[in-house]
């Protein structure tokens, strides 16, 4: 794993009277244990990876409480695991990255929501919004509505989040319905504190087993049960949920001085709204606002009585709803219309329809709303000036800078084993012309960025090969699919490989075997080289799996040997074999590798043992500054600097001290016949007598021939 959570695990042991200081997603994990869960599962992904990681490291506590924890094969697997709560009074929680994970999980979610649950079933979703997200234009809200799963969107502070997680289980049980708890990415990473409670051991757990299975045909999704389930959703579960939400006051009203206007907002937007009000002088540091607020910690279902009560006495209300379509705003229009309440609603007219509601966006929306409704005692002209002054600095900066600064998207790490494969693919492209590449989800998708610009389509995690199935037959040239080992085990094995073999696909599949799901924080997969305690007994090699499935053409290459990789790719392209050709590109994730070998080498150096450090360099004398090496690598460690040669105006290539000695730059220089400037330096630390002797001997002889 990318991070060890041994220290954070201690936080999970806190009890009554202790204060928890830590990250949002860890607070959620603690809340699960305080709620007496019997099982927890999920699939990693930003921003909820840490929930899975910390539980992986928390075996002892989990064993003590008898909680079953499983890192599921995919989000669909995680959602299906909630099936335990259908018949049995056990609480369970699963987590994943939404909306991408929710898409994968939809099949199981639909059935779960139809059957209904006995024990509380909670799904923690890391909402994937704005910066650093992949599918930001979709909303979990739509899934909640379509399957009738309640959606909580708590105010982003730890006490509120923890409370809402605990309430989510109660709401789930009170209404026999699964519940989503949605946390935006920054809320997951927010660092704060809350007063802890004792962990609760569940009545049914691995330490207290059930003996009698429950059979209830009413829970099976087949007629006539399914008709009854549909009816129960509307007639029973919905009213039960509304009743619970009202009774427990899950939504909050904050009164304020301007009683004829108000703001209706998603809980997750609360802090941003307060900050915007603070910036225009309408709220203080503690959130006391002159504008009254109705905070929806539950965004689905909406509670018409509460909304009517909040709006009826006000002439204008602003709806702050992140994401599109604007389900909440539209629903509120309908609710007020039905109750014949004439309050004017503002929403997506003063705020943008799409995109993350950042500080700047919120400031703009709130300002426009206040200007439009002009509450008594507010100088709207001054307000506008204030807003212009606050945001004008951006324009001034643009003028002063003259040109926008270059973008810096995330890319492959220094020494990443995936980079050389794309160098080889780039070389093949040079020799053979462009070919279609079906990409997949994972770090390797960074190939689509400069300098490689490789990858024509991406359709989903583990779906690379499946997405190529109509492309291969329609092209005169073979096409290539790139898939990570994480994607392979997630979905690629069934949707991709088995389907391709079954349908005589003639494509080329490159599996990046780096050993982990690296993009999400290097979690273990069935074929990981270094398994933690929990999975020690497994032996699930990709090669053996593929052989078992009938893959006949399979080659394994060492990624860093660019020429070999190039040759194998070329061979696959030109082979007479008609069928799926799999290239397993092997190279351990460099992050994991460095994490492992750094302490070992440090220890050796300390003991005075001989350690050879390898790094690469560029001779600035012979580098002509054409940067073709960079165009075939993009390594962060391979950079440029001013030439010390007064005649050369262009910067020369340079390897900085971040180099981990993977050797790609030298290999590329060879494979692409670039230039003679690259060298490898092997630095012998704690040299022994032989090293020193050879060094002296050579220096003596070379010295005779050497010019200055």
């Amino acid at each position, binding site marked *: 794993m990318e991070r060890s959570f041994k220290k954070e695990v201690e936080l999970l042991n806190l009890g009554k009277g202790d204060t928890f200081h830590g990250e949002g997603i860890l607070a959620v994990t603690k809340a699960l244990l305080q709620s007496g869960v019997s099982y927890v599962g999920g699939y990693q992904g930003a921003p909820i990876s840490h929930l899975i990681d910390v539980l992986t490291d928390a075996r002892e506590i989990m064993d003590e409480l008898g909680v079953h924890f499983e890192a599921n094969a995919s989000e669909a697997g995680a959602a299906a695991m909630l099936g335990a709560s259908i018949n049995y009074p056990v609480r369970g929680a699963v987590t994943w990255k939404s909306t991408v994970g929710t898409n994968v999980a939809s099949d199981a979610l639909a059935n779960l929501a139809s059957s209904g649950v006995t024990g509380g079933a909670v799904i923690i979703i890391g909402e994937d919004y704005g910066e650093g997200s992949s599918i930001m234009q979709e909303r979990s809200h739509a899934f909640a509505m379509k399957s009738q799963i309640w959606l909580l969107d708590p105010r982003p502070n730890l006490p509120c989040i923890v409370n809402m997680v605990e309430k989510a289980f109660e709401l789930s049980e009170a209404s026999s319905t699964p519940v989503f708890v949605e946390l935006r990415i920054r809320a997951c990473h927010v660092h704060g504190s809350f007063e802890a409670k004792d962990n609760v051991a569940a009545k049914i757990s691995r330490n207290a087993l059930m003996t009698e299975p429950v059979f209830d045909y009413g829970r099976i999704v087949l007629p006539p049960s399914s008709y009854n389930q549909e009816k129960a959703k509307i007639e029973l579960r919905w009213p039960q949920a509304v009743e619970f939400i009202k009774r427990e006051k899950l939504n909050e009203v904050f009164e304020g001085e301007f009683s004829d206007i108000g703001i209706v907002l998603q809980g997750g937007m609360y802090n*941003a709204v307060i900050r915007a009000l603070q910036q225009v002088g309408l709220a203080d540091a503690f959130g006391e606002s*002159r504008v009254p607020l109705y905070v929806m910690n539950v965004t689905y279902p909406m509670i018409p009585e509460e909304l009517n009560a909040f709006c009826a006495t006000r002439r204008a209300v602003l709806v702050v709803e992140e994401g599109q379509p604007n389900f909440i705003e539209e629903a509120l229009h309908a609710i007020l219309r039905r109750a014949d309440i004439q309050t004017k609603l503002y929403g997506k007219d003063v705020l943008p329809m799409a995109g993350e509601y950042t500080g700047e966006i919120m400031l703009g929306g709130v300002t426009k709303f206040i200007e439009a409704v002009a509450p008594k005692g507010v100088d709207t002209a001054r307000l506008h000036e204030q807003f212009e002054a606050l945001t004008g600095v951006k324009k001034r900066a643009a003028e002063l800078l003259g040109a926008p600064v270059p973008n810096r998207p995330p890319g492959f790490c220094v020494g990443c084993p995936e980079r050389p494969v794309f160098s080889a693919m780039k070389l093949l492209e040079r020799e053979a012309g462009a070919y279609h590449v079906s990409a997949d989800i994972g770090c390797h998708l960074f190939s689509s960025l400069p300098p490689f610009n490789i990858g024509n389509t991406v359709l989903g995690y583990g779906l690379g090969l499946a997405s190529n199935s109509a492309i291969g037959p329609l092209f005169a040239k073979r096409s290539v699919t790139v898939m990570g080992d994480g994607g392979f085990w997630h979905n690629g094995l069934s949707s991709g490989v088995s389907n391709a073999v079954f349908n005589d696909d003639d494509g080329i599949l490159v599996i990046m075997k780096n050993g982990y799901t690296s993009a999400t924080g290097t979690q273990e997969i069935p074929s990981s080289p270094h398994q933690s305690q929990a999975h020690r007994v497994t032996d699930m090699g990709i090669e053996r799996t593929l052989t078992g499935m009938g893959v006949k053409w399979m080659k394994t290459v060492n990624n860093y040997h660019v020429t070999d990789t190039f040759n194998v790719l070329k061979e696959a392209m030109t082979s007479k074999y008609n069928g799926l050709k799999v290239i397993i590109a092997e190279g351990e994730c460099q992050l994991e590798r460095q994490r492992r070998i750094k302490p070992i080498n440090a220890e050796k150096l300390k003991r005075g043992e001989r350690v050879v450090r390898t790094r690469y360099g560029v001779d600035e004398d012979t580098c002509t500054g054409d940067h073709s090496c960079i165009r075939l690598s993009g390594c962060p460690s391979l950079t440029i600097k001013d030439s010390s040669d007064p005649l050369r105006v262009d910067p020369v290539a340079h390897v900085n001290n971040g180099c981990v000695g993977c050797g790609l730059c030298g290999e590329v220089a060879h494979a692409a016949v670039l230039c003679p400037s690259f060298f490898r330096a092997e630095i012998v630390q704690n040299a022994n007598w032989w090293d020193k002797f050879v060094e002296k001997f050579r220096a003596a002889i070379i010295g005779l021939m050497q010019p200055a």
Partner: protein
Amino acid sequence: MTNTPYPTRPLTVLLAALGGEGGGVLADWLVAAAQAQDLPVQSTSIPGVAQRTGATTYYIEIYPVPTAQLGGRRPIMALTPSPSNIDVMAASELVEAGRAMQNGYISERTTLVASTHRIYATVEKMQMGDGRYDAQRILDAAPQLAGKAVLFDMAAATQETGTVISAVMFGAIIGAGTLPLTREVCEEVIKSSGKGVAGSLRGFAAGFAAAGGMLPEAKPKTVAAPGALPQPGDFPAAARDIVAEGIKRLADYQDQAYVDLYLKRLANIARLDTGDGKLAAETARYLALWMSFEDLIRVADLKTRKSRFARVREEVLAKEDEPIHIIEFLKPGLDEISGMLPPGLSRRFHAWATKNGLADKLSVGMHVKTNSVFGFALLRLTAGTRFWRRRTARYAEEQGLIERWLGAVEKAAARDLKLAYEIALTARLVKGYSDTNKRGKASFNRIFDHLVEGELSLSDSERAKAIFTAREAALADPEGRGLEKTLGQHGVKPLPPREQAIRFIKPPAAKRV
């Protein structure tokens, strides 16, 4: 809203770093320091992916009144920064400070703490010429936008103190004095973090001092004094340093006769440069570079010098008692080998080898250990064939192109200095080795064939502009597509796509039974 004596808003800190630089650690330190002083604090970040490269930010809010004095109230803290609402903006790299400016996060209330060193983005590095962002813009804008700007080279301070950049940033943030966090508390926080404590404390101290303006002056870069060089007084003032450098270079490359050839060639152009001397200067530069083209002899010579051994040792940070081995990645191909033969023989050999499919086979990747006796001797022997250079095919090829280039520059200089200048700069395209060199020359020839010597009816100023545009396009896109596009604007038919060497086997779709 009640009237309280409390500040109406928290202090805000935005940290911009590149993935893997320890921005998260720095955020944790600030949080811990605030907590140690009982100040309400919140931090958030968006580290979505594990990768170590992209730009990322961490956002922290600290309420400047201890929790104990708040009577149970809790300030509401935001999760995203707002424009004009940042008290401390710290950037671990200069362009990241520029990005914060661009996003409206640096205003009068902001203390900007930024490193002046650059880590280039891929798009800056990958250009064939110089694609770097003009950092001076950011340095100039900083004092105009920020209330207070603390700018220094944090990377250098990091290296000097042997620590991580986040420690230096931490010190500089605290040293700038905008946050209510004391040095003692922060150092205590570092000590209790338990990892690399001594280094972090040194880095913290360096950053703290720098923010207080106490950093020792950076050592001036050692540049060879121009006065020490011979001054060829016949050239325009602007060109003299470059000519001197060129003379030195070519004497080192070949011999005095070669230097004389350089000066003779240059004299014609210099005579025609009646302007500011820029034409003479740039022609002098590119002529010297071109005449010292990198063939096997030159490379072997440069690789075996004492100064080079010393530079490598320094660059890879080898300590005095650590032996190092230097292994070169050499792969001379058919072109390099045949280039060493006399022109006639070279042509026949090249044709024969290509016909017999030896082009690939002759290109053998070698790992030569330059610090071994054998490897060194091999390279020295190659370097020793300098006397043979004037007879080689490569020499003939380069001199031919040089004459073509100089002829065009000279011809144009008689009419229009600007046009001559643009033609002179086309030589910038010819650099690199093997394929890169070939592609560069191909671009050079395309521009010469059509824009410099072609039949197009253009005025001199139009022609100069067209050459400029074409050259920039060729530098920005070394594959040549950009160049073809600009040539197309002048009615030049684009080159057909290159023939492809590999035959792809694509069997007809299998019949389904």
